[in-house]
C-alpha cells in the first residue's frame, strides 16, 4: 500500500470557478446558523458512546450535513464526498464550533474505516460504504483484537475457511469500539495457517447484523459499555467481502493503524467537527475545581494545578511539533507514537492532579459532585491501553525512531501453526 498524502483533490472538479476557502467558510457559516442545533461548549449534551440514542442522533445530524452539502469534505466526489483539500475541512471545523455535530462518527467510521477502504477497497466497496457513511446510513467499526491476542494483533486465531465459493468465519473478537451501533466491521481473520503470522491474514467487510454473529457488551469500570465482543459461528461471506488481497490482510490492518495514529493526534482530514464528545471528555477546569474545594488561594493547590496546565499546554505544542515534523521529514512517521504516549501520560497527570486537589470529596459523595474525579481515576489507564498500549508504543519509538534492536519474537518467520500459543 502506498502512502497517500493528506490532501486529496479530485479529478472531477466542480463546474465553474473553484470556491475559495473563505467563500466556502462563509457559506458554511450561513448554512450552520440556519440548519444545525447550537450547543453551549461549556455544557455539552451528554454523548455516551455506549448508549443507542447518541448514535441515532449522530446519523440524523450526518444526514443533515449531507443534505446541506457539507459532509465528507475531503473524501473524493466519486464516493459521495466533496473532494476538497484539508484547508476546507479546517475552515468548516472552525465555523462549526458551538454547533452540535456528529463527532462520534469521526472515529472509527470516517478517520479509520472509510479512510482505509478508500486506500485498499474495491471500487464497489468504496461506492457502497464510503458513500453510505457520508450519507449517515452506515456506521463502520474495526474488528481486530481478540480475547487471546492483546498487543499481538497479527496473532489472530479467528479463522476464515473456504467452503465452496464462500468464506466461513469462526472465532471471537473483542474491544470493538461501538460495534453495537455499527452496520459493517473490518474483520481480520486467518486464511492460511502454514505461513508466518503476518502472511496468512485476510481482511473482510462484515455486515454486523448477520446470522452467525453474537454480540456482547463489555462493561467497563467507569460504567461505560461502548466496547463489544463478538462471537462468530459459521458466519458466511462471499468473495466481495474481501478487502485488499486474500492473505494480504496485514497490509490493510497496517493502513488502519496508520490512520488511527493520525486521528489520535488530530491530524486526520477525514474528521469533521472538533471538540469534546460529552461531559466525561471535557477538560478539567482547575480554577473551578479550586473554588469548589475552597482552595482558590491555597498556593499548594495553585501550584499543582499550574503544573497540570503546563503539561496540557505542552501536549498541544507537541502535537503541532510532531505533525509538522512528520510533514517536513524531520521526524519519521513512527513519531505518531510520541504523541500517543504523551497524550496518555498527560491524561494521567491531569486525573492524578484533580484527584489530589479534591481530596476526600473525590472518594465519598458529599453532594458536591466531585466524586466524579474519583471515578475518572478508576479508569485512568484506559488512555494508556486503548489503540495499542504505551508499552508497544515505547517499543516503536525505541526501535523505529532510535534504531535499537527489535524485541525478540519467538514467532518471527515461523509458520503460524507451529507457533506456541500457551503454556504446555
Amino acid at each position, binding site marked *: 500500500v502506498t502512502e497517500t498524502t493528506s490532501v486529496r483533490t479530485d479529478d472531477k472538479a466542480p463546474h465553474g470557478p473553484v470556491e475559495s476557502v473563505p467563500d466556502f467558510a462563509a457559506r458554511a457559516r450561513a448554512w450552520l446558523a440556519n440548519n444545525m442545533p447550537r450547543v453551549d461548549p461549556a455544557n455539552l449534551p451528554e454523548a455516551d458512546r455506549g448508549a443507542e440514542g447518541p448514535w441515532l442522533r449522530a446519523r440524523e445530524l450526518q444526514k443533515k450535513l449531507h443534505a446541506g452539502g457539507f459532509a465528507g469534505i475531503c473524501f473524493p466526489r466519486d464516493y459521495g464526498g466533496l473532494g476538497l483539500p484539508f484547508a476546507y475541512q479546517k475552515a468548516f471545523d472552525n465555523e462549526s464550533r458551538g454547533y452540535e455535530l456528529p463527532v462520534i462518527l469521526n472515529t472509527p467510521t470516517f478517520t479509520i474505516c472509510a479512510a482505509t477502504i478508500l486506500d485498499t477497497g474495491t471500487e464497489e466497496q468504496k461506492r457502497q460504504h464510503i458513500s453510505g457513511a457520508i450519507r449517515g446510513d452506515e456506521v463502520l467499526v474495526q474488528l481486530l483484537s481478540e480475547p487471546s491476542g492483546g498487543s499481538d494483533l497479527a496473532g489472530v486465531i479467528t479463522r476464515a475457511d473456504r467452503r465452496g465459493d464462500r468464506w466461513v468465519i469462526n472465532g471471537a473478537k473483542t474491544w470493538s469500539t461501538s460495534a453495537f451501533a455499527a452496520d459493517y466491521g473490518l474483520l481480520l481473520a486467518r486464511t492460511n495457517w502454514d505461513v508466518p503470522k503476518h502472511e496468512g491474514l485476510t481482511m473482510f467487510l462484515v455486515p454486523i447484523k448477520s446470522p452467525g454473529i453474537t454480540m456482547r457488551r463489555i462493561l467497563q469500570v467507569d460504567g461505560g459499555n461502548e466496547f463489544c465482543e463478538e462471537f462468530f459461528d459459521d458466519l458466511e461471506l462471499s468473495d466481495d467481502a474481501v478487502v485488499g488481497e486474500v492473505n494480504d490482510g496485514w497490509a490493510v490492518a497496517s493502513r488502519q493503524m496508520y490512520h488511527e495514529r493520525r486521528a489520535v493526534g488530530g491530524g486526520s482530514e477525514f474528521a469533521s467537527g472538533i471538540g469534546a464528545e460529552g461531559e466525561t471528555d471535557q477538560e478539567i477546569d482547575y480554577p473551578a475545581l479550586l473554588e469548589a474545594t475552597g482552595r482558590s488561594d491555597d498556593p499548594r493547590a495553585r501550584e499543582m494545578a*499550574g503544573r497540570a496546565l503546563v503539561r496540557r499546554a505542552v501536549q498541544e505544542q507537541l502535537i503541532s511539533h510532531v505533525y509538522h515534523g512528520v510533514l517536513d521529514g524531520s521526524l519519521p512517521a513512527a513519531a505518531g507514537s510520541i504523541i500517543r504516549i504523551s497524550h496518555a501520560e498527560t491524561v494521567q497527570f491531569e486525573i492524578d492532579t484533580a484527584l489530589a486537589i479534591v481530596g476526600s470529596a473525590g472518594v465519598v459523595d458529599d453532594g458536591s459532585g466531585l466524586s466524579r474525579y474519583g471515578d475518572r481515576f478508576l479508569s485512568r489507564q484506559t488512555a494508556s491501553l486503548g489503540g495499542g498500549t504505551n508499552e508497544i508504543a515505547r517499543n516503536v*519509538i525505541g526501535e523505529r525512531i532510535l534504531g535499537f534492536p527489535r524485541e525478540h519474537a519467538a514467532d518471527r518467520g515461523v509458520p503460524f501453526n507451529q507457533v506456541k500459543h500457551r503454556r504446555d
Partner: protein
Amino acid sequence: MTDAANPEQVLFASTAQAFLDKEAPLSRVRELHATGASFDTAWWHRAAELGWASMLVPEELGGGSVSGDGVADLALIAEQIGRTVAPGPLHPVNTVLAGLVDADNAETHSATIEALVAGELIASWAVYEPGGSWSPGDTTVTATPTESGYRIDGVKDRVEAGEQSGVFLVAADCESTIRQFLVPADAAGVLVEGQKSIDLVKRYARVTFDGVEVGAEAVVGSAAQTPALLARQGQIAQILQCAEVVGILDTVLAFTVQWGLDRHSFGRPLGSYQALKHRFADMKIWFEACRATTGAAVADVAARAPSAEMSVSVAKSYLGDHAAPMLQHCIQLHGGIGVTWEHDLHLYLRRATLYRSMFGTPEEHNLRVYALTTEMENAS
C-alpha cells in the same frame, strides 16, 4: 527555533558551531575551570564580531540579525552553546540589551549599546536580591532622587558575570515605583564579590551599592514602561536558558543513544534490553516536548505575542521539571563512568541544573501559569 528555514540562518548557525567547536570545546571549559576563570573577554569580543550581541538591536542602533528575526537567531546561538556548554556572557549581555533597546530613551544609551554590540563592554541584569526568590517586580534596593540624578543603595546578588561586567542594569525602588538604572561597575560605592555556581564556568556576583551616585541619564525607560521592560528582559533570559538546554539535551541524548547501540552486556547491545529501550523512548518523548515548547515560547517572544508570558512560563516549567532528570537518566544508562569527573556528563548536568533554578523554578512558573490562566478567564 531550530526550524532554520532560510539559508542565512543555516550559515549563521554553522558559523557559530564551527567557532564553538574550535574555540569553546568541552576541553576548553575544563581548562577555564581548572584556572578558576569564567571566560576570556578577548574571546567574547570575537564572538561579538560574529554578531552574538547584535541580534536584538535594531539597525539604527548598530545591530541587526541575519534572518530579520533576532529572537529566533539568538535562540539558535543559545542552542549551539548548549552543545558544549560553552562559557561567555551571551545571556546577561543580550538580556540587558533587550531592555535598553526597548526603552523609550534608548538613544541616551546608544554608546553603551554600541559597546555591548561590539563586545567591548559586558553588562548584566542585577535583579535578584540576597535570600529572595525570582520576583523581578520586587526590590529593596532604593534609588533616591538627588540634585543631579539618583543615589543607589542596596544589595543585589546572583548577578551573572558580575566580576567581568562594566555596567549593571539595576532594578530599584524609586519613590515607590520600580525603575531601572545603568550603574557603572567602577562607580564609587560599588562593591562586587564573586559567587561560584554549580556550573564549571558560570560565575555570579553579589553587588553592593553603597550611596552610589549616578546621573539623571542613567535611568532606563519611563516609569510607565518599566514593568514591560522587566517582563521582556525576563522572557529573553528565560528563552535563552530553554534554548541552551535543548542544545544540551540533543547532544547528550545523541551520545547516550550511541552508547546504547555500541555498549554490549551479556552479548547484547544495552539498547536491546526493554527496560532500557523504554527509558530511551521516554527521553525521546520528553526531548521532543522540550523542543516543541521552547519553539513555541521563542516564536511568541519573537512576535511579542500577548501569550508570550504564558508560553515562556510553560516552557521554563516543563524544561525545569524534565531536563536535569533526563540527564540523570543518561548518567544511569552510562553506568559507573557517568559519575566520574572525567566523563563530560556532569558538565551538562551542571548547566541544566543551574538553569532549572535560575530565573524561576518550575514551581514558581507553575504558580505563574495558574495566575495567568485565572486572569485570562476573568478577562473573558
